[in-house]
């Protein structure tokens, strides 16, 4: 699961990274956001969405994306 700050909410970490990259010589970088990665193995993949809603993300302030890496999906 990739969890990122909701659009529109100030992301000071993302801003800090966005400022730091040009100082290291990387140009043309925009829209940096810093979030979280959660990886797990699960028997029943249909439960993952509920896990995100209930614990892994806070839907008030975060969006999430679920990627099934292998297995049925």
């Amino acid at each position: 699961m990739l969890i990122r700050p909701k659009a529109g909410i100030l992301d000071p970490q993302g801003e800090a990274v966005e400022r730091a990259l040009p100082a290291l010589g990387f140009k043309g970088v925009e829209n940096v956001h810093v979030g979280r990665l959660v990886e797990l193995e699960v028997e029943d993949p249909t439960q993952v969405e509920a896990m995100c809603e209930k614990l892994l993300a806070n839907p008030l302030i975060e969006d999430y994306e679920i990627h099934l890496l292998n297995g049925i999906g």
Partner: protein
Amino acid sequence: MKFGVLQFPGSCDEVDALQAARRVGDAELLWHGQRDLRGADAIIVPGGFSYGDYLRAGAIARFAPIMESVIDFARDGGLVLGICNGFQVLCEARLLPGALLGNVNRRFTFRQVGLEVLNSGGSFTDGCALGERLSIPAKHSWGRYYADAETLAAMDRAGQLVLRYAAGENFNGSVHDIAGVSNERGNVFGLMPHPEHAIDELVGGSSDGLKIFESMRLTVEGARV
């Protein structure tokens, strides 16, 4: 009256909260792993780093067995005070609206801050005058209060915006300088600054924090009459 102070793995300011509560009534610690509130008239969810702030501050603590009882207690109108990490736990548990995000300066900051009372006369600010200025230490890295515009407007109308950082004192970037909020009913209150560290001039620099505990006592004892 008796306060119950929750204790999670990683709580830091629970004993400080216990001492503060004992200035106005009885108090004992309630272990996170069990469900008995032991007859507490009011619950304090203290500051610290419960569960190491893993995942999100308060995200894991909100599911502790003791919290199931606290949620029921709150739904029945019981008084619940959340301080700093406690505020985060109450937001995660949806007992309070909104969420706490990382400070805009991306650093933990400890500072004695001036707070303004926006709504007095409630269960937690009964002893305070409207507009009164309180001096209370704040110390956190995840204290930026956020709620969307619609929620904020509704909270404002309902008198749920209780404390605000005085001009120039908002170091975490909270929307509208909000430092403390209550639920609609007014029995659950969360704030980022630490009133338990402002009960004594000698160590706190002020005793303004005592007013919040005192207000809770007045509310509980008033309700009994």
